[in-house]
């Protein structure tokens, strides 16, 4: 079934068109991005049951972008009616255009505004609203109670799911586009405790769609409980450089945090990314091909971005060679390149930046068992926890929950936790010597720009074998 359209957008579209029309009488370019997003989160844990609309994912409002004598300005609001149209135009004319007038301004040429018009909706299988709160809570409660039955050392289990239904409208002089999407994610996290130290292991999955993803929790639970209990005997690793196999989720974090942020082209505009100087050069092993965009259906798949640019499947690294970055509208104007559909906002309230979407390494030809067998001494790195970008200097900081020891091509059963991965991005990517023939993607996380501007992304890809510094 198709994701349903938004009444807010449908009913207010004539007002939005009138607003854009008034602005176009005065300004060379004006666009409007309206959003009606509804996000609901369910969780069952020792804290009890919780059902709530999510602050991060529930938004209803619009943002106007105006091009004024070579500069851009924006106004966002969550109320629109006939009277407010004049008020908004006046606020832009008399207030925002005069903000920091004494300053020097970056000057841009006016955006191109190709004629595009459509109204599209993505598919979903199980509508959360039809499934209903009772069934969702009942399922999560079963997972929550099931964990303790599997092992008495479990002190808590959080079973949660969240979905976001979103409708977007983009209007400019020549564009009139509407899109409706839904993503859903599900997570199970199991907690154990050694003295005062709490250990946790989690597994999550996501789809561009509805509650069809929920079944993953039941399948994942025994493995998650086993790993959380194993963590009770984990040790601190001896710092050093090791042969490692990264699971697809850890590969995803490397793709996203270590490399992806460095090819966001607003960083090129600011002279903040080393990648700007290495376009056309080998930055990774020939085994590596990296994509961003709508090449897969995941939580960051859409038809057009938040600036009205059509989405695309961008090949960032082609067999080790850096081909291009990803780009938003304003950065495209600054760099004189075509935007790639990566202009994204946390919500209508926030500015658009260049942001990743679905970012991943293509799968290769190696069998996972051959990759493990090829390690004399090293680790399987799994359950990534966090990472931070360093586009300028390509430093790596990532934390993973588990390093699983491999000796003579076999797991020893010993695990180390937590692990800090560090190093230099091109060195790590060039050290990739094997890539698995299977790939997995996950969009259960959010990506920040620095420490703010959270947007939904997905990442992943294949298992990779690389040389990595661990501590």
């Amino acid at each position, binding site marked *: 079934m198709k994701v349903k359209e938004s009444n807010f957008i449908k009913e207010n579209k004539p007002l939005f068109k009138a607003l854009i029309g008034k602005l176009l009488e005065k300004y060379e370019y004006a666009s409007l991005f309206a959003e009606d997003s509804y996000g609901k989160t369910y969780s069952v844990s020792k804290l*009890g049951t919780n059902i709530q609309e999510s602050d991060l994912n529930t938004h209803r409002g619009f943002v106007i972008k105006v091009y004024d004598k070579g500069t851009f300005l924006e106004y966002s609001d969550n109320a629109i009616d006939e009277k407010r149209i004049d008020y908004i135009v006046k606020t832009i004319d008399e207030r925002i255009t005069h903000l920091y007038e004494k300053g020097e301004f970056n000057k841009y040429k006016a955006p191109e505004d190709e004629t595009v018009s459509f109204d599209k909706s993505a598919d979903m299988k199980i509508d959360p609203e039809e499934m209903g709160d009772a069934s969702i809570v009942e399922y999560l409660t079963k997972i929550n109670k099931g964990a303790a039955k599997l092992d008495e050392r479990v002190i808590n289990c959080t079973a949660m799911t969240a979905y976001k239904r979103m409708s977007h409208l983009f209007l400019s002089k020549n564009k009139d586009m509407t899109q409706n999407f839904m993503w859903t994610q599900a997570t199970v996290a199991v907690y154990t405790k050694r003295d005062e130290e709490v250990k946790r292991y989690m597994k999550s999955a996501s789809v561009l769609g509805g509650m069809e993803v929920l079944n993953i929790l039941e399948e994942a639970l025994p493995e998650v409980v086993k790993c959380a209990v194993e963590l009770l005997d984990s040790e601190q690793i001896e710092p050093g450089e090791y042969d490692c196999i990264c699971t697809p989720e850890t590969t995803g974090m490397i793709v996203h945090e270590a490399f992806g942020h460095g090819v966001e082209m607003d960083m090129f505009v600011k002279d903040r990314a080393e990648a700007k100087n290495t376009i056309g050069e080998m930055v990774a092993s020939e085994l590596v091909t990296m994509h961003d965009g709508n090449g897969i259906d995941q939580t960051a798949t859409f038809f057009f971005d938040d600036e009205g640019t059509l989405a695309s499947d961008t090949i960032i690294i082609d067999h080790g060679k850096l081909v291009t970055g990803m780009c938003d509208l304003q950065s495209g104007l600054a760099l004189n390149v075509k935007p790639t559909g990566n202009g994204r906002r946390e919500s209508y309230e926030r500015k658009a930046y260049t942001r990743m979407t679905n970012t991943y390494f293509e799968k290769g030809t190696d069998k996972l068992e051959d990759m493990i067998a090829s390690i004399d001494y090293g680790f399987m790195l799994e359950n990534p926890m966090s990472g931070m970008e360093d586009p300028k200097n390509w430093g790596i900081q990532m934390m993973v929950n588990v390093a699983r020891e491999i000796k003579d091509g076999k797991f020893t059963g010993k695990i180390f936790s937590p692990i800090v991965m560090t190093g230099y991005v091109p060195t790590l990517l060039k050290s990739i010597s094997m890539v698995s023939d299977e790939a997995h993607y996950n969009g259960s996380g959010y990506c920040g720009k620095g420490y703010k501007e959270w947007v939904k992304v997905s990442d992943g890809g294949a298992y990779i074998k690389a040389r990595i510094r661990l*501590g």
Partner: protein
Amino acid sequence: MDRILRLLKECGIKTYTVTSTKKESVELFFIKKNVDMRRMNRKNVFSITVYKDMLEEGKKIRGFASILVNESDADDEIKNRIMQSLDSAKYVKNPYFELPVRELSKEVDCCGDLSGKSLDEIAEEFASAAYSADCDEKAFINSFEVFVTEKHVRVVTSEETDVSYVTREIEGEFVAQCKEPQDVETYMDFKYNFLGKEEIKELIKNTLQVTKDRAKATAGPKSGKYDVILSDRYVPVLLQFFLDRANAGLIYQGFSSFKTGENVQGTDVNGDVFDITYGVTNAFDSAYGNKMEERPMLEGGVLRNIHGAPRFSHYIGVPKIGTYEKVKIPAGSMGMTEMKNRKCMHIVNFSDFQMDPLSGHFGGEIRLAYLYDGEGNVSVVTGGSINGSFLSAMKNVRLSRETEKLWNYEGPKAVLLTDISVAGE
């Protein structure tokens, strides 16, 4: 608010909490010294939680569900969603708890010296002050973002609470860059609830210096155990451990074994003993309307008060004092110069410093550290990482005599941790 209360009444809702937030912000974005974008943002929203009391197997239970509503939404839609949330609350079968009762107050002005000026003027004045510090010959501001926000918050509950307050804040981030001898950058964010012109100038000056030092750093630290000094913004991140572990939610789940009256730092302490006070950031709790006031958290390492949401406070049987975000700690007894007299590593910039309150582990990749050899010599290092456990480290922490004031922390500017694992070359 009156309309929302009327709609709740029409829906027959007896127990509720409503928070109204009217927000306006002015935002400036710079690349180098040039303005790249100007923005304004307005919104008016309500967060509504409805509660439903039920009996199950003879026990009183209280379900609840929350919705977010725009001021411009139609009455019928809001009523429909209120009724949906009441239906959702039926499936939330949590043990009964009491909401905080009766707190009344006219709007409290928490804007300090940010009152009396327009948001536009504040943004312009603050940005000008920041750029007046961008005068180093080698290092410079690469990019700068400032958000000046005013929020009028009103909390009304069915338990006779009706309080409101207004806040103004300046927050944002900047990146400092130095191109020679290596091209490097430092990311920094800031948040002030006062017109922190001198503070932003000092922050920029220090960040430019750190960036210049990082440009000279080429070697990484050797792997091993180090005495480590953490300072400035990393101190509250580390000490967030206490704020999290003293939260009723973590205690209720069994993640934290903190108990009031017990020494949570341990008895065999060789470093400074912690005295920590809960600090106030807003006049009232934004969800339930509790009056927020300074209270002791730790006295001599002994836990005095547990904070958190009223539900969990009720479950574990402690007073409902609200959820706190800020801590205040008295100055320590050791000067930072004395700290640096020993062989140690002062880490002044991480790519991302993290503290996990559940495991007690902290760590991060080192972007710049000063290595003191204990004989008066200092060198700079970059790269590698630290990975430590605060559960063991907290017994030997030394707190600096020098202090700092941040939006969520007032206390020692630096801490000295001993025997911390560093992964390096």
